[in-house]
C-alpha cells in the first residue's frame, strides 16, 4: 500500500497537516496526532500493516497484540478516505 500522491503530510509548527491536491475535497483542516504521523511515515516508506504494528509496538514499548486492532482500523479509515491506495 502507498499514500495517494494527491495527499502529503506537512509539519507546521509541530502540527502534522494533511495537504490535499485541489481536486480532492477536504472540509476544514485535517491534522494527525503523533501516532497517526508515525503510521503515515511508515506507509510512505513502503511498510505493510504487520511491519507498522510491530514497529509502533516497539516504539511504544507495548505488545503488538495490544495495538494491532487500532492500527488496522486507522489504516482502513485512510483507505476508505482514498488517502491510501
Amino acid at each position, binding site marked *: 500500500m502507498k499514500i495517494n500522491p*494527491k495527499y502529503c503530510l506537512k509539519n507546521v509548527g509541530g502540527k502534522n497537516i494533511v495537504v490535499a491536491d485541489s481536486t480532492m475535497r477536504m472540509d476544514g483542516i485535517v491534522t494527525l496526532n503523533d501516532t497517526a504521523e508515525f503510521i503515515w511515515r511508515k506507509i510512505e516508506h513502503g511498510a505493510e500493516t504487520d511491519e507498522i504494528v510491530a514497529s509502533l509496538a516497539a516504539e511504544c514499548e507495548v505488545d503488538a497484540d495490544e495495538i494491532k486492532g487500532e492500527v488496522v482500523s486507522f489504516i482502513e479509515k485512510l483507505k476508505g478516505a482514498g488517502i491510501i491506495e
Partner: protein
Amino acid sequence: MPVYVIAGIAVEYEGKYDTLIERSKKYLADESTAPLITIKTNPNVIENLRKRYPESNEAEYEYTDIGASFNRAIIDYDGIMLHSSAVAVDGKAYLFSAPSGMGKSTHTGLWQKLLGEDKAVIINDDKPVIRKIDGEYYAFGTPFSGKHDISINKGFPLKGICFVRRGEENSIERLSTKDAVTPFLNQTVKPANMDGYIKMLSLTDDLLSSVPCYSLICRADIEAAEIAYNAMKGEENENKSKILP
C-alpha cells in the same frame, strides 16, 4: 493597466467598477514601476460569487475576486493574508484574528479608545498582509480591507498575533507555535493547488515560530484592550524597527 504597490509588491490589475478603483487609489505606483504580478478577473469566480451572494453587486464581486487572487499570488513572495484587524502602536503592528463577527474590529476600536486615535492607528481592518522582508515580518495595509475600507498603505514590524474569542471574563495567554497553527490556518487563504498550499504552510511555520501568538478571551470592554496591550507590547526599551512605506 494601472500598477499598484501593495505590501511592497508591484501588481497590476484593471478594475471596471468604482469599489475596486477607489479603494486601490492610495496604492497607485508611479508610472515607471514594472509589475511583478498581473491579476485578471476570473469569470468562474465571479459566477460563483453571483450564485452565493445574489443580494450583492458586480462591483463587490470584482473587488472580492481581485482581492482573493492577490492574496493567493503573494504567497510566492513570502506574503500571507490573515483575516484580522491590524492596529499599529509606537511603530509596531498587532493583529487580532477571529472568524467574522467575533469582535476583531470591536477590539482594535477599543485600543483606539484606550490609547487615542493618534497613537493607535488601524492598518487594515479586515485582511492585512503579513510579509517577510529582510528577515523580519511586517503587517501591511491593502486595498482589500472589508466593508468599512479602513486601511493605510504602510508596513509595520509585526509584534504579535492574537486570536480572539468572546467570553465572560477578560484573560490573555501566550500560545505555543503549535497551538497557534489551527486558529491561524482557519483565517488565511487556502491556495488552489498543492504547491501553493505547501508554500503557504512553510510560510505559516516560519511566521508562527518567529512572532509571538496569544489567545485572548474577552468581553467587549476597555479592560480587554488594556490587558491585551500590556501583555503584547513587551519591554519599553526594545529597539525601534523601521516602518516601511
